[in-house]
């Protein structure tokens, strides 16, 4: 009897844990998952019919900290505000959007309000579901065959955030991931994005992938393709552990580097352009040219590996390209 009791307790505990796992499940396996967010996502493909989202960070309290950090020296600083009282808090922060050479500095006013009392017993209306109780701080919308994750509009900030999400998606979906808000600019001409230290990653996925980033770094692992990536200054790292590339890879970068593993079993025809190309792989160099990228010299090569079946078009612009043996 005691044994049975123990098991029951354990089972209940597991069930409880399951409930507390803070996962959001959406039945969606046909169509495109579109992500318009620069937050940190670790996306994994799997064979199933649901999109599963799990937040990997601690939940924020209601109206609590929004930490604003600047990356450039003068004028930007941390500003945090947690407001428990009922008055609207007004604070002033300077926002600087930056990557290596871009920077815009504008002053901004921030309004905070706290109406949690008034919200009791009411639900927010509208198709944009609010999942902040699960620690999910972006909106989720489903329109027919498109499932959309979108950053909530904020005033122009860069936020260093520790927000990180694990998303499992069915291999039957297409992925369209833009690390901006899906409009390249708003009316005031500002660019806003979040930044985190670890690269966002996509792994073990068999569907068609489109990724667009401005400065965020991306890591792809065991993604068979077709993969269409473009980035301005972000670095793209591609690894293959259990799978190897079967479909087109097209990567354009303005100055971020491209680092790709070449597994032994693959059959690739690689057209690569970059400041220089470094490799320890036994490629057959079919063509080699030094091209003028109008005002700088870059290397352009056509490399064959194995039978040369799958096309890879890697263009790192002014960045370097690394092609590694697995």
């Amino acid at each position, binding site marked *: 009897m005691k044994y049975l009791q123990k098991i029951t307790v354990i089972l209940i505990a597991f069930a409880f844990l399951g409930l507390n796992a803070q996962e959001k499940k959406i039945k969606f396996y046909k169509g495109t998952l579109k992500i318009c967010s620069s937050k940190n996502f670790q996306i994994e493909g799997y064979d199933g019919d649901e999109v599963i989202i799990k937040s990997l960070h601690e939940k924020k309290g209601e109206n609590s900290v929004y930490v604003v950090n600047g990356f450039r020296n003068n004028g930007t600083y941390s500003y945090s505000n947690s407001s428990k009282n009922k008055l609207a808090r007004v604070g002033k922060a300077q926002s600087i959007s930056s990557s290596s050479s871009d920077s815009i500095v504008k002053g901004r006013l921030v309004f905070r309000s706290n109406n949690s009392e008034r919200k009791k017993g009411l639900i927010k209306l509208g198709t944009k579901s609010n999942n902040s109780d699960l620690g999910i701080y972006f909106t989720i919308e489903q329109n027919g065959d498109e499932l959309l994750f979108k950053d909530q509009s904020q005033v122009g900030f860069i936020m260093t955030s520790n927000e990180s999400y694990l998303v499992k998606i069915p291999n039957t979906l297409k992925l369209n991931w833009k690390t901006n808000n899906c409009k390249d600019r708003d009316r005031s001409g500002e660019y806003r994005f979040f930044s985190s230290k670890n690269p966002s990653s996509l792994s073990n996925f068999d569907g068609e992938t489109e990724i667009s980033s401005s400065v965020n770094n991306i890591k792809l692992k065991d993604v068979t393709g077709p993969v269409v990536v473009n980035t301005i200054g972000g670095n793209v790292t591609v690894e293959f552990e259990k799978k190897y590339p079967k479909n087109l890879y097209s990567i354009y970068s303005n100055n971020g580097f491209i680092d790709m593993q070449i597994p032994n079993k693959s059959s690739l025809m690689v057209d690569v352009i970059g400041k220089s190309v470094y490799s320890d792989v036994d490629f*057959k*160099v079919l063509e080699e*040219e030094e091209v003028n990228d109008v005002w700088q*010299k870059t290397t352009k090569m056509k490399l064959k590996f194995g039978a040369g079946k799958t096309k890879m078009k890697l263009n790192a612009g002014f960045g370097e390209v690394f092609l590694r043996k697995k």
Partner: protein
Amino acid sequence: MNTNQLIKQCKQNNYKAQIEVYNAYKNMMLGAALRILKNREEAEDIVQDCFIKAFEKIHHLKEDANLGGWLKRIVINKSLDIARSKDNFIITDELEILENEPEDVEDEISISTTVIDIKNCIYKLKDKYSTVLSLYLIEDYNHREIGELLNIKESTVRNQFRRGKQQLLKLIKNKEL
């Protein structure tokens, strides 16, 4: 005209500039082709064809590029293509197993050896050795670059070079006697 201006003029198909380029580099190109093809008439033809081809492609070249190096690459590639189509020029990585290790001949050249002796001995060598030796010792390519030109492994190049050098030293010694 200096090289930059020459390149610019050649891009505009200027006859005078083209002739000037020809005269400046023809002997260098002939040497490179001859060392691979070993037939003077054939080499002269190839060099001229390469010049024409170069003038047709020169719009790819940047004005401050190394014109001589570029031209040399073209003629060496073309000469190797032709040499490869002949039977006695086959270097593959598998050959390594079949060839015996030669005894080491001393790497010392006596004072009485003339330049002409050396040249003749190099020419006498089998094509596969003479090509690797001249590309390394005279054209100044390194082993890796030679491997790329001939489509063989760098280690194969080293071995062929070592054996070729041994053969050459033997021939020179015989001449001295």
